[in-house]
């Protein structure tokens, strides 16, 4: 083997390894989703949280493998193994990495509709989103249609530069959050959540689980953003540190604005991470800190408005967290990405607004149609009796702590 072949092979190996590393990091975020939800619901719905996240992941894998990924990128894996191995399985590793993003959609929704949604219909809704809706928008931004995100797509022609979403503030998080909103509205609040117009927050199960979930998400997020470079040779320390600074910005802002509230500081860190995805490759670190601070404030304020003023029972606050902070991230890339604000340039606020707007429209429409349809066909909400008993016993016939008292 000569030198240039050796180097090429090493580059390829490095790229495959890099993507697998990233994919596994984001895979571990799904354990984070599970614990975040398990900590935030009541004890009687804890088993359901774990089972749902793992089932959603599994179904997502199958539909994204056979349908979603081929749809978004025009690459199918129903080809001979020799072909799959041709590039040391780089395409497969790429699929794995992007699957971990796609599978966030049902995981995000799950937290909003917890404690009263049916298990079966939610799995189906998740499959539809991961198999069709998400890949559609993905194809527009990152994939083969490129109308919004392609360097020579329609938007690039229209606004000068394409929509920029480096690691999915919009493609993943805003999409998930805005798909969740119709689901939450159609389902209505949990029994006892609002009594005679009075808000009666239902106590959560466990701050330690909530914290564990958050840590798993925070840790894995560095895979989410860093490996979004796509290949190791484009890895960037800037992406890592921007993610870091936005995360701590969100945490600190939430801490201050909530007066030391533990639930908010954890969610604030996540809000910062969600907002920084889009522009983490082009922000100056100081800008990333600011973007994160704003995201932390957004979550702290919007969650309270959503649940107390609008009386929308969004259990984990996924709409303000992923939906609004994600949209903010997309817009922020169109602000702090500009060179005069310290950014690396190559963005346009117009493109960003259009890209974000397209996401919201698609998500709201798709979410409404899918959940209305499923509701009409088979119902999406647990029966009153099942909801009172808790989905753990009603659906999975086991309690979170089977041994407890006798």
């Amino acid at each position, binding site marked *: 083997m000569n030198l240039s072949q050796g180097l090429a092979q090493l580059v390829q190996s490095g790229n495959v390894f890099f993507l697998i590393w990233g994919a596994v990091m984001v895979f571990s975020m799904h354990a984070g989703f599970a614990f975040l939800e398990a900590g935030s619901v009541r004890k009687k719905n804890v088993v359901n949280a774990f089972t749902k996240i793992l089932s959603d992941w599994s179904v997502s894998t199958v539909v994204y493998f056979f349908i979603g990924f081929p749809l978004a990128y025009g690459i199918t894996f129903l080809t001979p193994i020799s072909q799959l191995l041709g590039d040391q399985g780089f395409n497969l590793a790429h699929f794995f990495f992007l699957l971990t993003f796609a599978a966030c959609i049902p995981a995000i929704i799950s937290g909003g509709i917890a404690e009263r949604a049916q298990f079966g219909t939610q799995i189906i809704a998740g499959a539809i989103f991961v198999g069709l809706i998400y890949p559609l928008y993905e194809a527009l931004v990152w994939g083969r249609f490129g109308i919004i995100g392609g360097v020579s797509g329609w938007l690039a022609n229209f606004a000068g530069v394409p929509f920029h979403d480096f690691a999915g503030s919009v493609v993943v998080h805003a999409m998930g959050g805005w798909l969740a909103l119709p689901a939450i509205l159609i389902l209505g609040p949990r029994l*006892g959540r609002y009594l005679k117009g009075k808000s009666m927050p239902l106590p959560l199960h466990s701050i330690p689980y909530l914290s564990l979930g958050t840590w798993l998400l925070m840790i894995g997020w560095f895979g989410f953003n860093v490996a979004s470079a796509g290949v190791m040779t484009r890895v960037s320390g800037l992406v890592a540190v921007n993610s870091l600074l936005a995360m701590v910005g969100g945490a600190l802002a939430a801490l201050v604005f909530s007066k030391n509230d533990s639930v908010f500081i954890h969610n604030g860190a996540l809000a910062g991470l969600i907002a920084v995805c889009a522009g983490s490759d082009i922000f100056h670190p100081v800008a990333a800190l600011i973007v994160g601070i704003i995201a932390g404030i957004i979550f702290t304020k919007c969650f309270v408005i959503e649940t107390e003023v609008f009386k929308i029972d969004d259990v984990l606050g996924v709409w303000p967290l992923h939906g609004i902070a994600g949209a903010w991230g997309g817009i922020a890339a169109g602000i702090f990405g500009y060179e005069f604000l310290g950014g690396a340039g190559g963005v346009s606020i117009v493109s960003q607004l259009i890209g974000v707007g397209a996401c919201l429209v698609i998500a709201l429409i798709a979410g409404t149609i899918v959940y209305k349809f499923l509701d009409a066909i088979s119902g999406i909400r647990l029966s009153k009796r099942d909801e*009172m*008993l808790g989905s753990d*016993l009603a659906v999975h*016939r*086991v*309690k979170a702590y*089977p041994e407890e*008292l*006798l």
Partner: protein
Amino acid sequence: MIKIESIIRPQSFEAVKDALAEIGITGMTVIAVKGHGRQKGYTEVYKGHEYHINLLEKIKIEIVVSDEVADQVVDAIVKAAQTGEVGDGKIFLSDVKNVIRIRTGEKGPTAL
């Protein structure tokens, strides 16, 4: 003095507490218990093996009051905790000979 022990559904607890507060009762001791009665339970499956569970979560409230107000308290609890379905619970009344307030050492009804 009379001791009123009520076993109620956990979800009725807030309503009972409010009803008691309305009639001026605030002293009470609350215990998480499991109840067994006529109420149907549910099925639990553990690794492929089915069980029928009929120990259900209940809340027990213990209130000691002077004889005069006992009836009023019972009525308030019944009203607040009644759903009409099996499992609403029971109230047991029994005599208390004496009460001591630890803080002051006071004894008898005034210690309540």
